[in-house]
């Protein structure tokens, strides 16, 4: 007997005492919880997003679309970034004012090469106000997962209000599980040493989020 059959057989025998009265559709669960905590308008939701992002030590900027290229250029310059990774589908306009050398995200580039790049700029799929989270889904304007992981500085652009939702349940509705997703709430952090929080153990040490709109 294969282990598969053995395990499934054990599961069935283990459950012999439970009456088979449960409806057969997936997860017929009573969900008494809320879809979102409070229903606030666009402005309040965006403020909450900014507040929660900042609470987890992301640096938050707000600007209009027209000001975006200058804002990004300023952020890169302030860090002295010499090179910046650019996902293939990123709006070229966004980097039009930046001085840093633009590095394309190529399939052949090794992790060692990515490690040499200073910054990365991406869009996002959705941002969650209640938790201060941005979610990347690997779309062309966000690129492969590793480009937002290896460089030490990540700039993420969120379009307001289209990409902002209030809650985790709303975010999951917007996302496609077939895509690889990365949920980011603040920069990489650890509290493993005497519970002192330290930023940037392995992922980017600095996360800057630009709320545009």
């Amino acid at each position, binding site marked *: 007997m294969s282990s598969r059959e053995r395990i499934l057989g*054990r599961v069935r025998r283990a459950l012999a005492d439970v009456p088979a009265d449960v409806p057969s559709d997936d997860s017929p669960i009573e969900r008494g919880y809320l879809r979102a905590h409070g229903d606030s308008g666009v402005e309040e939701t965006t403020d909450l997003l900014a507040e929660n992002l900042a609470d987890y030590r992301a640096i938050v900027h707000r600007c209009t679309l027209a000001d975006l290229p200058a804002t990004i250029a300023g952020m890169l310059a302030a860090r002295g970034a010499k090179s910046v990774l650019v996902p293939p589908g990123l709006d070229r306009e966004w980097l039009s004012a930046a001085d840093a050398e633009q590095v394309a995200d190529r399939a052949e580039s090794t992790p060692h090469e990515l490690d040499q790049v200073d910054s990365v700029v991406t869009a996002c799929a959705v941002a969650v106000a209640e938790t201060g989270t941005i979610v990347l889904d690997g779309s062309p304007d966000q690129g492969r997962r590793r480009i937002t992981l290896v460089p030490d500085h990540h700039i993420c652009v969120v379009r307001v209000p289209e990409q902002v939702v209030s809650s985790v349940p709303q975010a999951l509705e917007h996302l496609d599980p077939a895509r690889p997703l990365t949920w980011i709430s603040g920069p990489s952090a650890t509290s493993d040493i005497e519970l002192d929080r330290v930023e940037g153990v392995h992922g980017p040490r600095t996360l800057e989020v630009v709320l545009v709109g």
Partner: protein
Amino acid sequence: MSGTYLGMPAFPKAAHGAVHDSTLRGNLRHATHTIRAKRAKAVAEVSDWAELREAGKRIKDHTLRHLDRYLVRLEESVTAAGGTVHWAADADEANRIVTDLVKATGESEVVKVKSMATQEIGLNEALEAEGIRAYETDLAELIVQLGKDRPSHILVPAIHRNRGEIRDIFTHEMGEWGRPAPEGLTDTPAELAEAARLHLREKFLRAKVGVSGANFMVAETGTLVVVESEGNGRMCLTLPETLISVVGIEKIVPTWRDLEVFLQTLPRSSTAERMNPYTSTWTGTTDDDGPRTFHLVLLDNGRTDTLADEVGRQALRCIRCSACLNVCPVYERAGGHAYGSVYPGPIGAILSPQLRGVTSEIDASLPYASSLCGACYEVCPVAIDIPEVLVHLRERVVEGGEVTAQGNKVVLKPAKGHAAERAAMRAARWAFSRPGALRTGQRLASRTRRLHPRSLPGPGRAWSGTRDLPALPAEPFRDWWQRTHGGRDGAK
């Protein structure tokens, strides 16, 4: 289950050493109290916590009720998404599968993201025996691995180490494993974290094989979820060419939507954050992004035996948030190592004896590693009634009875060496069924408490030999209630 640490003394003995280690106790008290207070705040922020908790419980119970169906569904969806599913009935089989998969890649090292399941099966040791080095990449796990130590907490495994000890471990051991610690390393957390970053980055960038566990697996879509803080998880999940995930069969949720419950309750219960810094989800393989090969090893290793126990099966709802550890007065004093298992604290006290059976001395003693104060049940985000299971397991240890072991029904004999416990249980049952006698007994005991010995005479000696008898309260609870509430509940 091969997770028993060899030569591990039973809980009372191990705990005895720990409670007299003042550094350990200090570290633990500070840590558990800090996390506890933060958690309460994070939970209070969410007005529908009770409903989320109830939904989490129901989703898990429903999944367990139909586990066979959801396992098959998961296998189909992972396979359809380009992954390969393996089934492992026990630790040996799981280790063999992973070892063979790593060997097939031609590699002799793997990077690992913290995983309870791989610790439970002793994967690192099994790989080592085949000449494969497994690098732990979670900062705390790195501290534990370099210190040739064992984890002591689910969430903060090196909680028993302070910064000075960590500095010494890094200075002396890092060079053995790769990039040495920088010269003149101090003990500030930021410098220590930086040393770990440099040491591990070298490994991440060259790694060809990653090994992980998972917090959740979605049957409907075949999606796996890993929740973490540092980014070492993302490194292991996305940079290598091959990814092997070893996951207990109880980690399934039926639908994508079900994640909305656990992604709200897990971070708040565990690190007391609204959301942990990184959550990764992946479904099979994706062209040009992440590993080209993905293997999922579904692990039983005692889980189906646990499922067969009508009272104990609720332990399989556990999402390993570690909230129960941080509120447990016994854990706070004894520390994680005393539990002799990768699962410490209240959840360990009910999970290990079920996964492994109660035949060993340590496993037979674990259900007694509790004061039954109920704090663990209060904080549990999936409402596992840990005290109920503890009492149930105590009875099993004492009385024996029918249990399932490796899929077969066996009749367990009453445990040897527990004659005193048996007597204590009988006495307790007798007293609880006769409220009058209990009341008199308590009053008597409390009035004479200054005369009480530190250990019990006669057959009770074996029992009190491993325990300091608790100081008795000046006034029994019943009397206090009577006095302050005027017997309004009708109790006379």
